């Protein structure tokens, strides 16, 4: 009976419940992230608070390879920026990281819908996707190395 209801639901024009939820969360998260991104970037431009790396040093080295840039500006890889959120350049990373996390948030919010529907293939797909994104975000994978 449930399978029949499911088939009817899929063949009706318009968005499925999981699409509606995903879209709603994405809409709110994207707008919050964008507003905070613009706000923190303007603070960075006016130097409030003082940035960790002076803008002159950033521009003098932005043509380098990333490892050279990090060496000169004394920035560590990975999540080290979270230790310097009191400085305007690293503060800008917070909304950037948030926007890069929006997909994980959206996936997690639709997981209960697939569970409730006993749609275990898509439950598995959601969990696998979240694991891939979390692994990429974790910083444990090698990136660079030249």
């Amino acid at each position, binding site marked *: 009976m449930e399978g029949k209801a*499911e088939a009817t639901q899929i063949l009706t024009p318009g968005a499925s419940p999981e699409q*509606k939820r995903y879209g709603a969360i994405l809409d709110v998260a994207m707008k919050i992230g964008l507003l905070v991104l613009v706000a923190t*970037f303007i603070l960075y431009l006016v130097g409030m608070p003082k940035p960790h790396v002076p803008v002159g040093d950033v*521009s*003098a080295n932005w043509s380098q390879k990333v490892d050279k840039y990090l060496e000169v500006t004394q920035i560590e890889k990975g999540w080290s920026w979270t230790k310097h959120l009191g400085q305007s350049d690293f503060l800008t990373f917070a909304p950037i990281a948030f926007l890069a996390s929006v997909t994980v948030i959206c996936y997690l919010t639709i997981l209960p819908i697939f569970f409730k529907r006993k749609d275990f293939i898509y439950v598995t797909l959601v969990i696998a996707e979240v694991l891939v994104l979390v692994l990429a975000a974790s910083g444990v994978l090698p990136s660079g190395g030249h």
Partner: protein
Amino acid sequence: MSKRTFLFLIVIAILMAIFAVSMVQAASDPASANAGGADSSLPWWAWPLILLIVTFFMGILAVLGGVGGAVLYTPIIGGFFPFGMDFVRGAGLFVALSGSLAAGPGLLKKGLADLRLAMPVALIASTTAVMGAMVGLALSDEIINTAMGVAILAIVVIMFLAKKSEYPDVQTADKLSSILRISGVYHEPSSDKDIDWKIHRTIPGLILFIGIGFMAGMFGLGAGWANVPVLNLVMGAPLKVSVATSKFLLATTDTSAAWMYLNAGAVIPMIVVPSFIGIMLGSLVGVKILARSKPSAVRAVVLTMLVFAGLRALLKGTGIWK
């Protein structure tokens, strides 16, 4: 001009003005005397400002030309701005992400982007995008530029030759798409009909996404240029569903690679943020003027720009035009 459009343009003007004023404020800093990179005679603040303006127009062109912003962004900014390729590719992924995040809610709510179609594809593409990013970050700029030049020129050929099929003829859904229950119905306003669709050749399509994800991560190109032909021509999804699903799934594909670049330190806010805002605002304006544009003329401009950008990357990589 409608009241809504007028308000929209006012918001854009205010945002641009805030950026410009902030740039002028930043320019009064003593550090602004520093040049914008080793090969540049301009002050540092000129580059983010030029980047904001260039990406704004790039965003308009991308929408009108039916391509994602990153396929234009990465080769053009990499070829003509004084930024290292690692940072340009990192920013390119965030550019693709910005377009997808902005368009995603509307496409999902209208039922044009299909979550059931996007999720298996996204899992494969995002996994291989991580691998592509790892390879890309380990290669020299010369190799990356050469390979990207070849890739961009190949993309131009694909875009030029690939035909589009509004409603591909899918007689029966294949076994895998039936198991995954990938099918749907959307309302087509132009004909006032409900369009029933299903897909086939799911396994070959998914295999192609292994390569698409890898290239997206390696070159920071996004993947819209390849997503649409594979979803539409190989898997048989209607064109509107393919375009919308492609746009939506970029957020997942590029997020995984974007995290790799972020963790590698290849994200500089002074490059990423003006690009992000410029492309997003440009895309919004592009959507507004889409109805009045001549698609064939815009497409010719986009293809010409891509040829030029591809040749530039190739010549830069081979050392002929430094």
